């Protein structure tokens, strides 16, 4: 006589250490295999898009820090760039270079956490992430030096930066650029060839190229699927067209590829940083802008390659001191839509791993 079985509902999160924030998965399970998965989010909703409508253009920069809180500098960058595009403000060369340096440092800092957390989810409990947090700490020191905060930098302004970099910044950056490649190599050695990691992540959670494009994924998730798409190359903004760097891509789009793409991107970021450091010009760091900033009537979409993908700010202006509407295209949110496709058919332990490999930040998804 066959045993009668029926699928059951398993609730993971929102308060669960491996859901990277307040994210909830309602998984329908057949034994240990997931047959259906429904993501539930909105627990961190603060209405930041609405808050933008009642703040001045510069006043909102401090709130963009709270979107993707692991890459605040990129958020500042994208927002300021969108506003400057509509206002027709030209920022100075020095400012552009400092912005690029900050954005690339931020990419390394964010990917360190992403890789560390992913390895943590794999079962390499706490060792890699503690090493990587130590490296991230060095970048945070640099950010603290220039902006005065360690998480919510609020460094960029419409028309430039809040302050110029202090004189002790460049020697510290040189030191960082000298040390960092060795650390990345060492951490790469830690787990790249580890048999347990390979067995767990190779071929797990494959996101085919077509699906990745259809769900409009971006960033390392898209590139791991083999699509060579990077806003820095295909639509160069700021001064990115002056640097030489490669776009690392994965072979088949499994968890291992997403992990490898992030590690390679850190190396490419170091390359960009080295070039930007050499080319950094002197001069003014800010264009004088009348405060509060008034934008002409119109709409604008400014996008950058943030650490997690294409981060865009869509701003509609009605010639007042605040945007009429501000929409944020959050890369984590769109990447998360791939989760169901990747997870179905895998076991619950793999689902945690696949989820970790997307590298989401809930602050950006719920906004």
């Amino acid at each position, binding site marked *: 006589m066959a045993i009668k079985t029926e699928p059951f509902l398993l609730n993971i999160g929102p308060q669960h250490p491996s859901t990277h924030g307040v994210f909830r998965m309602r998984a329908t399970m057949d034994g240990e295999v997931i047959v259906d998965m429904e993501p539930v989010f909105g627990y961190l909703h603060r209405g930041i898009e609405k808050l933008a409508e009642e*703040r*001045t253009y*510069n*006043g*909102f920069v*401090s*709130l963009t820090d709270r979107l993707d809180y692991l890459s605040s500098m990129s958020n500042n960058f994208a927002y300021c760039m969108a506003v400057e595009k509509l206002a027709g403000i030209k920022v100075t060369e020095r400012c552009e270079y400092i912005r690029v340096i900050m954005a690339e440092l931020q990419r390394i800092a964010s990917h360190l956490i992403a890789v560390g957390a992913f390895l943590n989810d794999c079962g390499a409990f706490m*060792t890699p992430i503690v*090493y990587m947090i*130590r490296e991230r*700490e*060095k970048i945070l*020191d640099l950010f*603290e*030096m*220039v*902006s*005065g*905060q360690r998480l*919510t930098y*609020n460094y960029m302004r419409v028309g430039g930066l*809040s*302050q110029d970099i*202090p004189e*002790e910044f460049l020697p*510290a950056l040189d*030191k*960082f650029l000298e*040390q960092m490649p060795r650390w990345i190599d*060492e*951490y790469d*050695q*830690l*787990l*790249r*060839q*580890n*048999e*347990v*990691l*390979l067995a767990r992540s*190779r*071929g797990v959670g494959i996101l085919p190229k077509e699906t990745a494009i259809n769900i409009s994924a971006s960033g390392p998730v898209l590139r791991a699927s083999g699509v060579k798409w990077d806003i820095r190359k295909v639509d160069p903004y700021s001064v990115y067209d002056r640097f030489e760097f490669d776009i690392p891509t994965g072979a088949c789009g499994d968890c291992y590829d997403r992990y490898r793409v992030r590690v390679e991107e850190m190396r490419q970021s170091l390359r960009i940083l080295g070039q930007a450091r050499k080319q950094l010009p002197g001069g003014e760091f800010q264009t004088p802008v009348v*405060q509060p900033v008034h934008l002409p009537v119109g709409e604008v979409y400014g996008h950058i390659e943030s650490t997690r993908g294409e981060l865009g700010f869509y701003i509609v202006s009605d010639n007042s001191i605040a945007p009429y509407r501000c929409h944020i295209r959050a890369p984590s949110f769109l990447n998360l839509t791939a989760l169901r496709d990747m997870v179905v058919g895998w076991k619950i332990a793999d689902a945690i791993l696949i989820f970790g490999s997307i590298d989401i930040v809930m602050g950006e998804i719920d906004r």
Partner: protein
Amino acid sequence: MKPEHYGIGIAKGLRVTIKHLFRHPVTVQYPEQKLHVSRRIRGNELVWDNVKCTGCATCSKACPIGAIQIATKIDKEKNKYDVDITVDTGYCIQCGLCVEACPYEAIYMGYSYEKAKYRRNEIIQSNDMLLPSETRIRSGYMSPGIAAQLPEQTLLLEKITEKEE
């Protein structure tokens, strides 16, 4: 795809971990030992200069949260305007926009951290509480003159003393 020789990857990983055993620790015993924060730190207690302040309320308008309230009234005895400032540090997000906006350099970020309060009424601070004192030090945020007087920031980059291989 299977690895060629089992165990090599694990051995390489262990080598890194064992190397770390012989390195100096980079952490400090926090409450006893303290590192210097950045000279530009946007600390969590605003410092107010009552001599320079004219009560123009530019800081209040620049605040994205609305944590600063400024009121002016006429002091008839001294024949001048009196400024009443109230800062709700519970709402303050330490963005530093008020410091940037102030045209008279009358408001500064605090050079402090670990300023938790036991009671809710202590987080709303006004007038004399905001004046600079020994415990309420001005930070160098947006004022390079003050930054030069503060101790240099401790960097983890320089702290790590690794034995050469």
